[in-house]
């Protein structure tokens, strides 16, 4: 194969893209199992010390290993918080975060939830001595939660995280599964593979077009 400038550029460029893709695929981060699709409109839900906030009607995704919440203790170090997750059959999981956290996204690790559970209830208890504010949507005409036993119109935003840190590569089977959901039955079971093949085809054809035209006058 004769090395021409076009071939060198294409080979080096496509190799660089492939290397970048591998680097991204190997990055390890906490990954999401799901969310409750609630907008975080700021710190709108206040949980007094020693009290509990319970949010019913949650769809608890399988593989949940932690809850990510937006929380603030009003400039003070955050108090200890505990979380309990229950479904119609009884308790499902629980966990807690120690005191001293700072305002922003906090992660409360819980025991891994293997299966998806509908109609679950997530409760968060403030084990400290001062109030904690949570991010969510309130008032929210469609939802009621309970705070200190009283109904409140609103909803806490919850992100369900998978246990530990994972690379995109490790997550590929899950991504492929999620890719197969909520799509046309005509494509859903092969959409991920087809998208990959189509992009390989596009890149292959583009390379061929550039090599073809290299020889043109």
């Amino acid at each position, binding site marked *: 194969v004769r090395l021409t*400038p*076009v071939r*060198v*550029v*294409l080979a080096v*460029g*496509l190799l*660089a*893209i492939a290397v*970048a*893709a591998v680097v*991204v695929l190997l990055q390890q981060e906490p*990954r*999401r199992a*799901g*969310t409750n*699709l*609630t*907008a*975080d409109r700021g710190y709108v839900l206040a949980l007094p010390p020693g009290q509990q906030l319970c949010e019913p009607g949650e*769809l608890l*995704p*399988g593989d949940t290993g932690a809850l990510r919440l937006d929380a603030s203790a009003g400039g003070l170090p955050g108090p200890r918080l505990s979380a309990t997750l229950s479904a119609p059959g009884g308790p499902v999981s629980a966990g807690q975060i120690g005191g001293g956290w700072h305002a922003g996204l906090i992660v409360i690790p819980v025991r891994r939830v293997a299966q*998806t559970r*509908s109609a679950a209830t997530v409760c968060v208890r403030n084990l400290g001595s001062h109030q904690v504010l949570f991010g969510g949507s309130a008032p929210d005409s469609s939802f009621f939660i309970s705070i200190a036993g009283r109904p409140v119109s609103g909803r806490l935003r919850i*992100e369900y995280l998978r246990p530990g840190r994972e690379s*995109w590569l490790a*997550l590929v089977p899950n*991504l492929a599964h*999620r*890719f197969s*959901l*909520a*799509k*046309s*039955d*005509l*494509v859903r079971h092969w*959409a*991920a593979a*087809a*998208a990959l093949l*189509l*992009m390989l*085809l*596009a*890149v292959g*054809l*583009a390379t*061929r*077009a*550039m090599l*073809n*035209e*290299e020889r*043109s*006058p």
Partner: protein
Amino acid sequence: VSAIGRLLRRVPRVAWLCALVALANGLAWSLIVPPFEVPDENAHYAYVQQVAERGTLPRQVAPEGSLSPAEDQILSALLTFGVVGHRDNPAPDTQVQQQVIDRIAKQNLTALGSGDALTATANPPLYYALQAIPFKLTPSGKVLDKLQAMRGLSALMGALTVLLVFMFLRELLPGSSWAWPTGALVVAFQPMFGFMSGGVNNDDLLYLMSAGVLWALARGFRRGLTPANGALIGAFLGVGLISKLTLLGFIPAVALAVAVLARRTWAEDRRATARGVAWAAGLSLGPIAIYLLLNHLVWNRTAIPGGVGAATAAPGRVFSTAEELSHIWQLFLPRLWMRPQFSSYPLWETWFKGLVGRFGWVDYDFPAWVYQVARAIGLLVCALAVAELWRARKALRRRLGELAVYALAIVGLCVEIGVESYRSLVTNQGVFEQARYLLPLLCLYAAIAALAVRFGGRRWGPALGALLVVLAIGHDLFAQAITISRYYA
């Protein structure tokens, strides 16, 4: 038919390859982006549904009517409005949610709605009439199956757009065949174009027709205003106008082009020139005239619903011509002494960053550094293109009329977008402008890339072209990666 066959046979093989690249890319995007996550896809689907199921055009229903039980229930099951606009909310990702979708699909709900198609209601019908074909041909009655089939047709329109972009470059730069695929492929891998090609939106037909107009104009400038070329110009403009009224912005450029071309050939062959002008004018105006008549006589809609003309200002707002002119200026250019109308700088925030990539219902984008890198690359490519124009200034002087036409196409489109933007602001305080509205200028985007490559000459140009194509591929794949991360991670 045989003339079309001959024309198609004259299309170079490499042009088909570029079109296939765009088709593959558009289809990939159609699979990656979840249903109804392309801007206003619910409204465009509703329009097609109305055309296919009732054989009529949609009409405004106040208060906003239901689209149809079938579509409304699926939109609800997909949690569409919990995902749209909320970049932290993924698409449905559990089997439980899939079961809800399956249950609704099995209910065989009616596809007959109130007749409202929301933001799409006022659009002309051509795109929707074409999309009614895959809608009707899809054997299942399921909304998601029909939507996917319609997305396939949009991807095909994207492929044909790239074919026309290639043909435009072939007419524009006849001596530089190695620069044509660069321009066409840079468009084929343009992520915003790929994203739109993978969705149901009448912009897809608008892009195709705009590329057709610019190709026909370039062909006219190279080969003269023959009756056939006049017909091509008129047909693309006329059909484009009943695809989306945005193409009104091209009318001044087309009028100037026809005038310049007619002046050139008038002395040589008056009869052929007159026929060329007549074809251009007749085919440009014919479809829109028929559309206006049908609106008035058959569909009982206002002349150009939502298109041009006066609109009622929101309480506390008044239309002001001076403010409108200032609005249009500031939408694309530095503010100068004018009273500020935007909180950000639209040229950078809306147009540049939007074209580099802002996807979904304008709810997710690249990390900030990508736009900085894109600016550096964009400036370099533009500098090379300008340098090439300077180098070829003698030839350019002979083609100033043609250059003025392309410049007027840009100005016309910008003014049209600016007028719509101002109307939207005054009538409902809404933000209208999105970068995808500039994609009717894809041919000129490709021309900048091709000119930059041409600057490299026969020796280095092809390598420079390969570099631009590789960058475009990387850009597109990165856009798909953030899309997958946005909806599925």
